[in-house]
């Protein structure tokens, strides 16, 4: 029987079997915060809905205003849910990549996913403005394509993740050069549209956008958590990991594939939302520890929370103008992170 076909209790991630300590406090706090922000996001909008009605329509109870359930379920809930899922995917993808490359600057952009998806989407928007329906598919294909090219060029063998990192950077630079070319010479209206896609936005998303994303999250996130131990081992360096009995090459390819799939799925749905994948693991490390068994779920929750907060604030500060949430992720996330960086010395 292969080892992955059965699971021992001790193989389950720490976060699944140890319901006490700092980790569960942090998880509980993040979950509550996510719920509060979700309700706030469902309450806020052009059509006034009271928060009581929001809670009631979520629980399928009769509401005061008969329009509320429709507004909440059809207009607002899919957008919030989608943002949350995208944030989770990016947060986990970034965590895996930072662990895998042992580089604190790694994020989904490092494997060329963002650049590839960006080039595909921007070409479609600028060269074929009438083919918008194919946008998610093109972005997914572009992201995956560059990632596969990276895998073929760099491989995952060897002792040093340096080769992977540098190949990723070079491929991204070449791909983005073409994107810049399109942005510099394209027609200005389409360039603006392309820019909005490039920063990433969850505006105007409905259930039909949520369903294709959901399976990726449901399958890959638990899988990533199950592999968190080998990520811990890999972080000690390939030689130590090999000594600890990890099949380094296979683990590395598997983890890389997971992070690429998560990032591609997220980018295909919402555009290249930056910063979430970079910063969620760092915040997570400061809140709990750098043990991936607890880091992955925490980084996932932080990523989700960051995206829905950004979207809520992005559509409320300058309303009725909407700021794409990809802009707000960095504008909100960076100060918070810098504050955290500063504060963690005071402990």
């Amino acid at each position: 029987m292969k080892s992955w076909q059965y699971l021992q209790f001790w193989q389950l991630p720490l976060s699944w079997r140890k319901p006490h300590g700092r980790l569960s406090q942090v998880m509980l706090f993040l979950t509550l915060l996510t719920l509060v922000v979700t309700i706030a996001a469902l309450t806020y909008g052009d059509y006034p809905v009271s928060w009581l009605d929001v809670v009631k329509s979520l629980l399928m109870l009769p509401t005061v205003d008969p329009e509320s359930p429709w507004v909440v379920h059809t207009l607002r809930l899919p957008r919030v849910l989608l943002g949350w899922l995208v944030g989770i995917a990016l947060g986990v993808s970034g965590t895996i990549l930072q662990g895998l490359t042992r580089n604190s600057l790694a994020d989904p952009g490092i494997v060329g996913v963002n650049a590839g998806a960006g080039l595909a989407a921007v070409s479609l928007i600028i060269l074929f403005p009438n083919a918008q329906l194919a946008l998610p598919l093109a972005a997914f294909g572009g992201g995956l394509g560059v990632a596969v090219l990276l895998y073929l060029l760099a491989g995952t063998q060897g002792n040093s993740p340096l080769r992977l990192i540098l190949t990723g950077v070079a491929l991204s630079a070449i791909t983005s050069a073409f994107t810049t070319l399109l942005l510099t010479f394209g027609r200005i209206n389409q360039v603006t549209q392309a820019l909005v896609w490039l920063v990433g936005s969850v505006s105007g998303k409905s259930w039909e956008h949520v369903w294709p994303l959901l399976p990726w999250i449901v399958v890959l996130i638990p899988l990533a958590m199950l592999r968190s131990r080998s990520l811990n081992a890999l972080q000690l360096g390939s030689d130590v990991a090999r000594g600890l009995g990890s099949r380094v090459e296979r683990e590395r390819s598997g983890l890389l594939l997971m992070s690429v799939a998560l990032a591609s799925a997220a980018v295909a749905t919402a555009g290249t939302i930056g910063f979430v994948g970079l910063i969620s693991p760092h915040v997570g490390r400061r809140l709990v520890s750098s043990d991936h068994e607890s880091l992955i779920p925490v980084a996932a929750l932080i990523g989700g929370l960051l995206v829905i907060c950004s979207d809520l604030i992005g559509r409320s500060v300058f309303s009725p103008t909407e700021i794409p949430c990809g802009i707000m992720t960095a504008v909100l996330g960076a100060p918070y992170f810098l504050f955290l960086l500063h504060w963690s010395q005071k402990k």
Partner: protein
Amino acid sequence: MTQGLKNQQRLSPFSCLGIGVLLLLACLFASLAYGAKNIPLSNIFTAFTTFDDSYDHLIILTMRLPRSLIAIMVGASLAVAGGLMQGLTRNPLASPGILGINAGAALAVVIVVFGLNSSSLPLHALVAFVGAAIAAATVYLLGSRSAGGPTPLNLTIAGAAVSAMLASLTTGTMIVSQRTLEEVRFWLAGSLAGRDINLFLTVLPFMVVGLVSAFALGQQINTLSLGEDVAVGLGQKTGFVKIATALTVVILAGSSVALAGPIGFIGLMIPHVTRFIVGLDYRWVLPISAVLGATLLLLADLASRWILRPQELPVGIMTALLGGPFFLYLIRWRIKR
């Protein structure tokens, strides 16, 4: 970082420098000779020896020579700044952009174009330099105020966070105002077109000072790259070295971005290429990086003028398109499985 590099194939650093300089001179000649109008080599020599007011000579002395000199200085500065950053942070992904320099310059220019409704290259240059300096100072302050002081990790992640935030604000402004986007997008891709020689002469002293101080710092970077504790143990004043390095990077990369706009890839790639060739001794890495960086930017500029002539492409695009494949090839060759 040395893992897997093959030692026996390295040339001696001195001959590398020599070959680099020869390559640079060859590219300089090509850059003078080719463009929208091709000029025979004999005319290039006579333009310097016996100048007559012929059209060819005017093109060479008033347009192509200044532009080539700018490309050389900007390329050298970016590559050296990148080498310093990678030495300082010990992170192979570090580049001058990590101190927030490019992002700060871009945001400053976008704000000025958006707010003042004016756009002239000298103004862009000044504003870009100021923006770059402010961003870098912010990153350094934030990085050194966090737990453990200005450690490489603190500097890099503070820099990444600040850069991401500034870049978001830049994009946000461009999405809101299409006029700003229209005016700034060519500058943002990085270009050497139409740069004024007087502007270059103003910036030149800064760049020279930056390069000299960078070369002087080479030995200190060698020590620092052994790790902070070792460096302190060897008697280095690490705080001073870090600040001096950061200042040098700001001067070099700041004046580059002021002259040519944000050009990203050179600062990241060239130091790696140099280390592949000569090893890890920064006393050699920095000068050879300067020569190679200058060569790459000169070639990229030539290509950007030549491919769609008389149209011009932004040079920032060509650096990635020319340098990228070469870099990929080197990575495959030099970093063994």
